[in-house]
């Protein structure tokens, strides 16, 4: 006991304590995040669908209806939307919707990966629809970013901006930034056309093309060779920074030079 009391006042004690605390915090955080990003079961079983139906009845049926055929003017029917649509909408937190507005907003997912896959299994069992893509289908390493650039430019850039930074649509709707979106979710969005987005089926952009687009978007992770990219908003941001930073700094120095004379 005496020894502990003595060591409490040791010079290194605060450092050791802080390190221990940090280790504890990061350990807990790692455990929690591991739990939430646990791999989804790849093969859906009948049990999954049954579990999914329970989740659906508790969380989704108030709008989509108990039989998932939708409610006129409130929520669409989910028969035939497929597992991909559920994985995208629930996996990005867009569903369940927090509040009604111009469009569903992405937020922290409200279900675990396992629950999402159960929901997906249930909705997939209602009618044939697009399935969740495999790892290989969305692997940016296997795509051709140059072809992705051309496809993105003709099909996506008018809403999402030239490199996927996002853009405005009518009446408060918007095309979101795509840099934080996972390859699987990007693929599912193209396949199912959520919100205002059109569907890009395999006849429109074939699966390789979709992977090329993912490769092009992931190439943006490397940042801009020119330095900070000012949100890749384009000339509006550049003009604003030109006025505020460049001209601002220079005018500040004219005031300084002027003040040092008389």
């Amino acid at each position, binding site marked *: 006991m005496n020894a502990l009391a003595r060591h409490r006042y040791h010079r290194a004690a605060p450092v050791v304590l802080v390190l221990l605390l940090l280790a504890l915090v990061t350990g807990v955080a790692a455990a929690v995040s591991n739990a939430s990003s646990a791999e989804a079961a790849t093969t859906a079983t009948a049990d999954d669908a049954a579990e999914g139906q329970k989740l659906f009845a508790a969380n989704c049926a108030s709008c989509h209806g108990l039989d998932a055929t939708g409610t006129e003017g409130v929520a669409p029917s989910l028969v035939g939307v497929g597992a991909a649509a559920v994985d995208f909408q629930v996996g990005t937190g867009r569903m369940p919707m927090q509040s009604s507005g*111009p469009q569903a907003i992405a937020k922290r997912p409200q279900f675990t990966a396992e629950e999402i896959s159960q929901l997906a299994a249930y909705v997939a069992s209602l009618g044939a629809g697009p399935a969740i893509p495999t790892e290989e289908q969305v692997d940016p390493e296997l795509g051709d970013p140059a072809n992705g650039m051309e496809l993105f430019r003709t099909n996506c850039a008018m809403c999402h901006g030239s490199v996927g930074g996002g853009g405005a649509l009518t009446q408060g709707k918007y095309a979101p930034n795509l840099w934080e979106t996972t390859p699987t979710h990007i693929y599912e969005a193209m396949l199912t056309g959520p919100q205002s987005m059109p569907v890009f089926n395999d006849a429109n952009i074939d699966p390789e093309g979709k992977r090329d687009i993912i490769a092009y978007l992931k190439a943006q992770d490397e940042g801009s060779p020119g330095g900070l990219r000012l949100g890749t908003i384009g000339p509006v941001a550049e003009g604003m920074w030109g*006025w505020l930073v460049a001209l601002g700094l220079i005018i500040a120095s004219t005031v300084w030079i002027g003040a040092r004379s008389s």
Partner: protein
Amino acid sequence: MGARVNTAAAGTANWVDERTSIGGFVKFFARKLFPDHWSFMLGEIALYSFVVLLLSGVFLTAFFVPSMDIVTYEGPLATMQGVEMSKAFESTLHMSFEVPGGLLMRQIHHWSALLFTAAIVTHMARVFFTGAFRKPRELNWLVGFTLMILSLAAGFSGYSLPDDVLSGNGLRIIEGVTRSIPIVGEYISYWIFGGEFPGEILIPRLFTMHILLVPGLILVLVALHLFLVFLHKHTQYPGGGRTDKNVVGLPLFPVYTAKAGGFFFVVFGIIALVAAIFTINPVWNYGPYDPSPVSAGTQPDWYILFVDGALRLMPGWLFDVIPMEWEIWGYTLSLNLLIPALIMPGLFFGFVALYPWIESWATGDRGEKHVLDRPRNAPVRTGIGVALITFYVILVMEGSNDIIANLFHLSLNDLTYFFRIGIFVLPVLAFWITRRLCIGLQRKDRELVLHGKETGRIVRHEHGEYQEVHEPLTDHERWVLVSYDDISPLEIEPEYNDRGVRRKGYRWDRFKQRLSRIYFEKRISPVTPEELEAAKHEHH
């Protein structure tokens, strides 16, 4: 060592002087006086960023290939591998990714272009608000105005050179606007593009315009601009001993030469710093030009943005009833392009260019002015200036409406409706508020001159009265506050003479009187010496 250097310098100077008689000029220029104020350096910023533009531009011309021939990209950029593009775009990628320092030079060039135009506009605003354009400097205002227009031409032609999707979209709009000119528009468009848009000769033509024609004109006009500054002598702010007949300041040599020389490096340094940190015009994001795609966030550089804004603002149908596009005898008249993109800038720039004449004509003030106005002492002019800026800023914001909508989670449509009303209402409101503020500030100045500064010291007199001590202004302080023109509105002869005969030209005089009243009806006269004397007696 020092003596030897001096002898060598003197010898060289003498050698040059004996052959050119340049000594007289040097003496004249070196002794030329300039008043000192930070705002007199705004034009210098424009000049120095132009020098930086020339320097970096020379570097870029060494690598840029102004050709629209198609090649296949085989450089280091993964996202462009095997993509077909024009040589202009390919050489831009080449200079950005393979030439050492090339990307930095491109960014320096583009940032200084933004700064060049911004500095010109700021300088113009300074000249406008201080009344430095008045007689005898009206011509120089016009030279400066032309330089501003040329800077837009230089900027836009340079912005279009890399032949990327963004600038190609800009050219497509220019083509549409050109075609909206009644009858001759189509021909002009064919003449510019050498046939159908985009054609194959535009980039070489823009290149000639960008590196030869426009900068040449800018250089000549800059020389004229500076020559006229020398000729007229620099204006000065009101202050102790400064009148329309003198210049109070320091000689060009040595103080200003050192300051101006040093300031060039400050400007260059800040441009280089910004260019090294921030990406500008990442053409590798936009990709080579192809007439079909238009991405979100497609805008021109800031100085053209107001035209884009006017185009976005213009409804296709007025009040949903009157179409803005007419077909007359087989010709299409596109008012929805003509009004925002040609008539509006024409009126706006026309008004700005002619403002010195408009003001002197409306006020009837024909005297030579070498002492500047403090903006508050010209409330109507200041109001007009703020209204013009408000008008311009609304158009710039409408030009960025999708960016604003996206960043602030607003509805794009609502923003446009708001600006459609705002473009008519807000400038008027800005004029009115500014004029009121100016008059308020003038009243405050009057108060200060008459009663001095409040010191916050309260004294109690023997008879029990409390009074705050006011400290009278110094002569220098008072000079600044009272030395401005007091012009009363135009008086005109009556409509009928004493025999009841109506006077010719009465209506015209009435019109001029109305204008003069706009300027001078509501005015705060400067304190006269008699008023000051009376105020002193009141206190003591």
